[in-house]
């Protein structure tokens, strides 16, 4: 459980986080979304006690991070895969971290196995690829077997196989009842992983909602291509849908794809295509954050 309440964080004149409140619940994967510079990383840094907020609070399990005696047993975090000393081996790096929180040495081997770095455990980190470093960072986050996990842009630099591995891992962690917060600036990525999304822009909360609700909100009808478009249009209209011609097909709203299929079958009309359409999540995300984009390219008129 992570609770962020009325959090405000300033860097000089710039307002990085502006009266932000949200909660991250256990058992689900929460996506933390926003364009670059929206304040995601800052918020996570505040949660981890790396920054002190100007006002508001960020609590983990009801307590400020800084007051945790052995924080790694309660919170695991991957903030920056580069935050390691290249001169140490993966195992030594993890062992140093583990020891600082009283975690046994055996756990180091376990997490290395878990992230797939067991074979390179004794190699210096300096020789690791970005993907390997991400896995190492995740291993560090898992060391204390914590109930709360935070990953800042975890898929950066991972190959498709790695990306899938991360998704499955987060899914698994959430299914074990843990609180999982994953930040990203790519909505599409989140669509496949997150059960819940928190979207922020310019440090302010934009949406805090379950993923299906977000999908629902941006529903755009069903595209149908049929051998007899006119006949089908009449049938659908008769069932209460509104239909307009579009690009040689029919754009149908008011009926879902399953019902359309049943009606077409009933009339013996062959369907060539039946595609439920929503605004892509990317589009939805762009829409949501449009006003808050700080570093967006100048818009065409």
């Amino acid at each position, binding site marked *: 459980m992570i609770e962020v309440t009325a959090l405000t964080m300033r860097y000089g004149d710039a307002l990085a986080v502006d009266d932000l409140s949200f909660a991250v619940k256990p058992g689900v994967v929460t996506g933390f979304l926003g364009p670059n510079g929206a304040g995601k990383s800052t918020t996570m840094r505040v949660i981890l006690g790396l920054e002190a907020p100007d006002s508001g609070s960020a609590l983990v399990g009801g307590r400020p991070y800084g007051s945790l005696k052995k924080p790694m047993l309660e919170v695991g975090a991957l903030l920056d895969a*580069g935050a*390691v000393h290249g*001169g140490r081996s993966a195992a030594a*790096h993890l062992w140093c971290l583990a*020891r*600082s*929180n009283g975690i046994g040495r055996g756990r180091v081997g376990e997490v290395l196995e878990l992230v797939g770095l067991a074979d390179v455990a004794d190699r210096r980190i300096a020789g690791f690829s970005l993907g390997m470093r991400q896995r190492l960072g995740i291993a*560090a986050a898992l060391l204390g077997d914590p109930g709360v996990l935070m990953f800042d842009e975890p898929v950066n630099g991972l190959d498709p196989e790695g990306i899938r591995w991360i998704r499955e891992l987060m899914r698994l962690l959430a299914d074990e009842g843990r609180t999982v917060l994953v930040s990203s600036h790519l909505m599409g990525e989140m669509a496949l992983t997150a059960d819940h999304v928190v979207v922020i822009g310019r440090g302010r909360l934009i949406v805090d909602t379950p993923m299906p609700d977000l999908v629902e909100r941006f529903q755009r009808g069903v595209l149908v291509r049929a051998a007899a478009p006119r006949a089908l249009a009449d049938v659908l209209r008769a069932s209460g849908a509104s239909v307009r011609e579009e690009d040689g097909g029919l754009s149908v709203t008011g009926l879902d794809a399953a019902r359309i299929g049943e009606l077409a079958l009933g009339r013996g009309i062959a369907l060539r295509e039946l595609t439920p359409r929503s605004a892509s999540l990317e589009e939805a995300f762009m829409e949501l954050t449009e006003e808050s984009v700080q570093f967006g390219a100048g818009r065409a008129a």
Partner: protein
Amino acid sequence: MLDAIVAEWLKLRSLRSNLYLLAFSALSVLICAGVTFMVVRGFDTQLGDNRLRFTSLGAGMGNGLPVAYFVMGALGALSITSEHATGLIRTSLVAVPRRQAFLFAKIPALAAVTLVAGEVLVFGMHFVTQAVLGDRSGQVLIDGRTLGASLTDPGVVAGLLVAGAAMPLVAMVGLGLGTLIRSTAGSLVALIMILFVLPIVVQTLPQPTGPQIGSFMMANLPDQIVAGEESGILSPIAALALLLAYPVVALTAGAVAIAVRGRGLRPLLVGGLMAALLVSVTAIPSSAAAATLPWKACEGDLECAAVQVPVDWSKPSGRKISLRIARLPATGTHRKIGTVFAVPGGPGGSGIDDLKKSGGNFTQLRQHFDVVTFEPRNTTDLGVIPFDCFATGPWITVPGNRTEYDRLAAKNRKYAEQCRKADPEYFDNLDSGSVARDIEAIRDALGGEKLSLLATSYGGVVATTYARLFSGSVRAVYIDGGVDHLADPAIHLRIRYEAIEGQFARLSAWCESSDACALRGRDVGAVWRGLTAAADRSPVPVKGTQVAYSGFDFKVAAAPDVISPGPAPDFPNWQRFARVVDQAVKGDASGFADFVEQATKTKKVPSFRGMDATHCTDGTGFDSYEEFQRMKALGQQFSPNFAGNELWHPLGCVGWPAPVTNPPKPLPADQLPPFLGAGTWTDHADVASAVSGVPGSSTVRYNGSGHGLYLTGNQCTISHANRYLTFLRLPPKGTVCEPPTVK
């Protein structure tokens, strides 16, 4: 916290670069070896006195230590700057969110590693230096130090331990700086500034500001903590406090900075207070309030002042006289050890004149001491008694019977009374005991610190008297060519006769081989014995006068020339001796009379009343006619060539009007530090006998002629004396100084 500490130990251990850095610190040992090798090469090409001019390598860390300090400081700095450079700091702070705890958790591992490495390094540097020096290590140098120093030398082990223990402190400074600055390069530059650049820059500041500021520099502090031969400016406790203040300040600054960055500023009051406390210790004055004597510049480096003393010490509140004192103030930047008090000889010499003439010989001693001296109350030209009275006296004859003895007594008394009537109270109080009490009054006026005495010739009697009367005021006693006031008279007599006989044998040997000797080819001993024996029966006239020389007169006049041949290789005094003896054998003693007259304005050597005024009250004279006879007989037995010569001083006291107030008495040996003596061929036995009264004392024997070694600038003797006076280290018994090689 323990978890964090262990984790930091793992961090330190798991980086190979740290191991390389520690290995690099071995360079400091190599530097010591290299520098020492160069010193040894230079040393071996030098001879004699030039070797005394080398600078001591001390315990042998000098050149490598700063390098070792830098490596340890770098290790400390890197332990945090490398986290900043790599970004690991973010991971670390997530694991250990309490920032100051995170910083302080680094201390134990870092301290342990650098302490062990530091001690290994300093002992490595020491042993390597000692190994390269070999037996040159014990060479005593002009400043009293030795070229090297072994573990058995006082303060060396402690000094090494302290230098090694300073390594973790430097590492802490590095850690604090690294935390403050965050950048590796910046921290290393700051370390270089603190350890290397600033100490060099302050050296260029004028005296005494430069050395004073220099003494506060971290790299210069460990040396000042141990009271070994590396004495500093600060007191040991102040140096220790300051050395600890450096890491406390640096870590406090670092801890504040790291907390401020997390916006969790908690003022580190403890650190601030500790630092303030430690630094304030250095403000405690290292010595007691300075004495209030109004010193005035008087000649060259000399400063002069005056001290009032009672004429008669048995009446302290009675009449006072003023004694001039002078000092060559300490010049060194080192912590002052105290005062060396130079006691002049004579009796009748002025210590101030000695310092005017020979002050240059005290250059090294002045690095640690004020050199103070005085014009003793018995100085011949002090003026209370007219100079002409003190500088002259009756001619002494050797009594042949009791009647003649009594007649001599009457003559002596008549002469003495001529002087005494000018100021009887003063005249009767010219003994060395009164002089010693004057020194004690001067010591009080100087502030009451213990004195280190440097006594020349008859000053040895004053010094032993002082040591007997004021044993608690004595730090060290160095007696140079001093007279033994304490030995059994018969033993003393034999020592004196053996000395002059030995010298006469050397003169004879020289004469056999030198064309400059007027008696060459003849048996000098036989000629001399013939002359003196004949003259005792029938005195040899001084042509053109009524004066004639007895054998005794010849001996008294010749003895100074025999004892002091003058500079090698000409030995002008021996040449003169041979010339005037040759002339006397031919029946004319005017050669003797001429040079005696040049020095004394009379044709025979007079018994100087100024000198007698001290000799006689110090108990130089005979107890009785019987003792005179016994000593006379012993002289015949001891000395074929100079029998009777040693009667001259005591015979001057026969009939002396003032009582013996300072007779010889044994020293309270158990209350005194061992003495050092130094003497030439003719002085050494006497000096050795004089210092033998205090167990553990030692001597330096100079393998040559002369009288007085420190004031005449004998470098080898000065080295040993400086070592004794400065560090209280005595040369081993049997130490010999050879004459300087002729340029």
